[in-house]
Each structure stands twice: as C-alpha cells, then as structure tokens.
C-alpha cells in the first residue's frame, strides 16, 4: 500500500466521520448509502469475483432485519404481544434496554445468516449459471412469502421496531444510525480488502473463470464457495439489522425480503460500478443512490418505470460497468502491461 492510497483512505474516513455534521439534513440518506455500499460490495464477492450471480443475498438481509428486531424486542418484552399491539403503544424500551437489545440483535443478525448460508450453501452453490440465479431468486421470494404468513413476527401487517429512546431531550437518532451503518461499512471494507489481497481471491477468480479446471487443479471449490457466501451473509445480515432499525417498520415483502427493490439494487450497483473490482461496487452504489433519489423525488410514481429502463440500459450497454470502461481506456493504471504497437494496431483495426 503506497502513500497515495493511505491519504485517500484517511481522507475518506475523515469525510465519513464529519459528513453527518456537514450535511445534517441528509443523515438518513447517508446511512442508507452506507448500507447500499455494504450490500453491493458483498454481492460483488459472489457475482463479481466468484461468477455466481445471486439474487438471494436479500435472504440474509431480510433475515438479519427480522432477527435484529425480534431479539431487541424479545429480550425484554413478549414478542407476540408486541407485534399484536403494533409496537410502541404498550411497551417502551428504556435507553439502556434499547442499546443492549440493539447490540445483541446485531450480533444475532450477523451470526445466524452466516450459519444459514453455511447450511444451505452445499445444496445451493452446487448449481451452475442460470439455475443458480433462478434458484436464489426463488429463495428470496419464498422467504418473503413465508415470513408474511408467520404470526409472531407480524405476518401481513408488519413489525414495528422499537423507537429510538429520547435521552434527556437529545435527538440523536440520525447520528446513532449513521455511525452504526458507517461502522458496518468500514468493517466491510477492511474485511473485503483484506480478503482481496490473499490467495482466497485468486481461488474465487479461478472458480469464475473455469470451475472444472480449478477443481482439477486440486482446489476444493465447494469449500471456498461456501466460505465466500458465508462472508457475504455475515455483512448482509448486519446491514439488514441496521436498516431495520433505521426504517423503523418491517414488512415481509416491501422492506425485508424486497427482491423487487433491494435484491435488484445490489446487483445493479455492482454492475454499474464494475464487477470484480474493489472500488467498482462502492462507486456504483454512490452513483446509483444519487440516481435513485433523483428518480424518487422528481418522477414520483414513475420510479419503477425509470428503474426498469435503467436496468435494461445498464445491462445492455454497460455490462462491464464504470471500472471496466476505465480499465479498457487506461489499462496501465490497472497494472496491466500494454504493448504500444499492439494497441495501435488494434485501434487501426477498429
């Protein structure tokens, strides 16, 4: 790691720490951006590095959301009565209960999806190509439909998460959730960056490029695929838990297992930025968030139409994403050795 990148990282970190105070009106948006970046980066571990295009990471996100809220409520109050009464009216969390519950909830929200990913990984990750994509799509929708039928977590009417406690008249809800999600983002970035410098990334790339050959080279591909999925599930669950508290209301198909929005967003963000790069999903998520907020503000009602068109256009015209485009344009910056004569010949051919 050279000096320039240190300056970049420290600059971004400082910016992240002071951002809610510079833009106090956008605290919630910035928190959502952090969650989106976490989701895009972890999707990239499957879709970009491993070549397994999943729609199913939404499963871990929704699972984490429900688990975090359930633990936060269930630690102090009966869960069934909470959901039946619609939440806050009957029971009130004291500040210490709220924070204890949130901490325990986030731990559970990260651990349980990881275990679930490990358990179903052997069965699901054996599928190849489009079978995997459709299977994970089905998994996400099935989870949404089934959780919409379970009474104890609110069934069709939804689940209200505990409201943020009022500590001595101080309104710190936005800051609390911002720093929580920013912390998750920093944690994810450090973990993913650390992973990408090891042999693990090379193995994932080998699986993407030719799985049978990788197996023939003596790599136990299944073990690495499951590990990769478990890492994704860990951070997706964490992000889901935070998002649940941030939104304040969990609905089975519209918030938690929202394959139509979040499940597609994470794929789209990673593709927009460039699959298979560290920075691509981060840039993609940031760009996408700006686009999305623009659509949602100026074309209210038409946002899904815009989203559908956006998906088609991105997928057809920019399948390599921003980083892929830059890579083609400036290959030297990406550490590729270019033969000048060869490149000229190619340009002439075009």
């Amino acid at each position, binding site marked *: 790691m050279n000096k320039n990148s240190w300056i970049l990282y420290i600059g971004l970190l400082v910016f992240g720490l002071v951002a809610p105070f510079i833009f106090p009106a956008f605290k919630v948006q910035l928190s959502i951006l952090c969650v989106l970046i976490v989701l895009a980066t972890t999707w990239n571990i499957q879709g970009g590095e491993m070549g397994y*295009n999943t729609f199913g990471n939404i499963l871990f996100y929704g699972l984490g959301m429900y688990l975090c809220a359930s633990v936060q409520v269930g630690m102090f109050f009966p869960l069934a009565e909470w959901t039946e009464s619609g939440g806050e009216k009957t029971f009130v969390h004291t500040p210490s209960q709220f924070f204890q519950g949130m901490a325990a909830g986030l731990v559970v929200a990260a651990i349980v999806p990881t275990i679930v990913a490990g358990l179903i990984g052997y*069965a*699901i990750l*054996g*599928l190849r*190509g*489009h*079978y995997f*994509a*459709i*299977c994970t*799509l*089905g*998994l996400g*929708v*099935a989870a949404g*439909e*089934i959780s*919409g*039928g379970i009474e104890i977590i609110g*069934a*069709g009417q939804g689940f209200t998460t505990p409201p943020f406690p009022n500590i001595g008249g101080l309104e710190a809800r936005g800051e609390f959730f911002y720093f929580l999600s920013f912390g998750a983002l920093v944690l994810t970035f450090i973990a993913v960056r650390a992973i990408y410098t090891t042999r693990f990334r090379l193995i994932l790339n080998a699986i993407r490029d030719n799985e049978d050959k990788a197996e023939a080279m003596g790599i136990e591909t299944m073990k690495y695929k499951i590990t990769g999925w478990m890492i994704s599930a860990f951070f997706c669950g964490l992000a889901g838990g935070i998002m649940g508290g941030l939104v304040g209301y969990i609905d089975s198909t519209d918030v938690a297992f929202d394959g*139509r929005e979040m499940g*597609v967003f994470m*794929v789209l963000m990673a*593709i927009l930025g460039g699959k298979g790069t560290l920075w691509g999903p981060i840039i993609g998520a940031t760009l996408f968030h700006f686009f999305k907020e623009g659509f949602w503000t100026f074309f209210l*009602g*038409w946002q*899904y*139409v815009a*989203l*559908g*068109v*956006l*998906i*088609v256009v991105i*997928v*057809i015209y920019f*399948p390599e994403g921003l980083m892929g485009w830059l890579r083609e344009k400036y290959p030297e910056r990406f550490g590729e050795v270019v033969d000048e004569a060869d490149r000229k010949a190619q340009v002439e051919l075009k």
Partner: protein
Amino acid sequence: MDFLVFQYPMITIQACLDGLLLGILFALIAYGMALQWGVMNIINIAQGDLVILGGYIAYFMYLYGIHPAWGVIVSPIIMYFVGIAIYKLVINKVVDRDLFISILATFGISILFMQLMNFAFGADVVLANSGYGTTMLFDNNVVLPNSKIFSAFISIVFAICLVVYMKRSKLGRAIRATAQNARAAKILGVNTEKVYAATFGINAALCGVAGALISITFTIHPYMGLPYTIRSFMIVIVAGLGNLPGVAMSGMGLGIFEEFADYILGTEFRIGSVFLLLVLILVYRRFKLSRKREYLK
C-alpha cells in the same frame, strides 16, 4: 386441516380436478418458455408479466361489453406484436450474450411492465366474468366452474395447433433447425434474426392466450407475474427441454401440488410453497447431476 383431505375424499377429488385444469394452463405458458429457451437460449423473467398483460386485454374487452372468451383470439394477436417489439428493442441485443445478462434484462422489462400495468389498469384484483356457470359432480359435492373446463379445452387446442404448425410449416421447420444449430441454419439460408423474432412473438402470443384464459377463470393483478414465470421455469426443468408430453405432465402435477398446498398449508403459503418447491427441485437436480459427474470421473 390436513386430515380433512383424507377423511373427505370429495375434497381430494375437488383438489385433483382443480389442479389438473389449472395445470393444463401452466403447461401452455411453460410451452412458450421451453420454445424460447430452446431456440434462443434465453430465460424470460417477464414471461409472467406477458401473461398478465394478455389477461388485461381480455378484461378490457369484457369492460367494453364484448364477451371475454373472444380475448382468446384477440389477445394473442396483440401480444404477438408486443413480443416482436420487445424482441426488436431489447432481446436481440442479449441473445448471444451471457445468460445472466438476459435474465437481468428481462427482469428489468418485468419491473417496467408491472409498473406500467399498475398505472394503466390500477392495482385492483380483477376478473372477467364469463357467465358460464358451474358443473356439479358427485351429488353436488364437487363444484367445477365451466370456465375452467373451457380454458383447459382451449389450451389443449392451442397447444395441438402449435405442435402441428411446428411440424408442418416452413417457419416451424426453420425454428426447429435454428434450435438445433443456429450457425448451420444460417449457412443453409435461414434468416435466424427473423426466426428469433417470430419465436419470441409466438411465445408472447401463447402468453396472451393463457392470460386471457386466466382472466376468465381466476383473477389478475399487475404484480402477479413473477409466480407464473417461476412456475413455467419449474415445469420446463422438470420436463426437460423439447419434451412436450413431459411439459404437459409436469404442468398438471404442479397444478395438483398447488391445490393441495392451498388446502393443507393455507392460502397465504400458496405462492411461498411454489417458490420453495422450485428450490427443492433445483437442489434435487443438483445432487442427481453431481452423482452423474462423479460417475464420469
């Protein structure tokens, strides 16, 4: 609830007959899916939304006082051109690309259609009343709406017509040749671009027929598309590409499964059980195939 199914055979018979008639409709949609998958190697997530759009055409005829059964004729004609338009705008750019690209692109189309239909027709659950009455069987214990029987009959007629068309006509031969080997077909003078467009159009027309029938027998809603896509995908992978009797059989099997899931688990888990069944089938297939792979080693 589950013991009821065994204590009262009439419920079992009712579920089986309902499922059978429903399954024939699913098989018709799945046939379209198998056609485009086999010929163009594309999985169309927007399949279900085409079905729903076809249903709305029949519903609109009903609103304007025309009997919705005529939708069976009108809807496929309109849907054929909708299919061609989608092909010209989007699909022809993703035909030769990675399969995931086509899945994602059609997913985008699906979201687009969903929302446009929501704007145009509203978010209400609607049905076109055909006024066909019901048939009572077994001392009035089993109730079959005549519209279901009608829809199953029409589905079979359309499926047979299509099979004959594929076997006999020039375009049908061209489509089959392209499915076998697109490059060789091109060399022998088949305009594959036209064949692809026609295939997608025929698929959309089949969806139109199925949609019109669904709007008569069941209900339609702008967001109900995805389950139909998943059902047809499931039917095709169970049957295998190019296995038409298999598609019919697995379609009926799925219909019966759904009716029983409805009775036993409750209506709120009906769609969920379909998606779970898809996951289970894919996982079963994966273990079966992996055994074969090990054997080959």
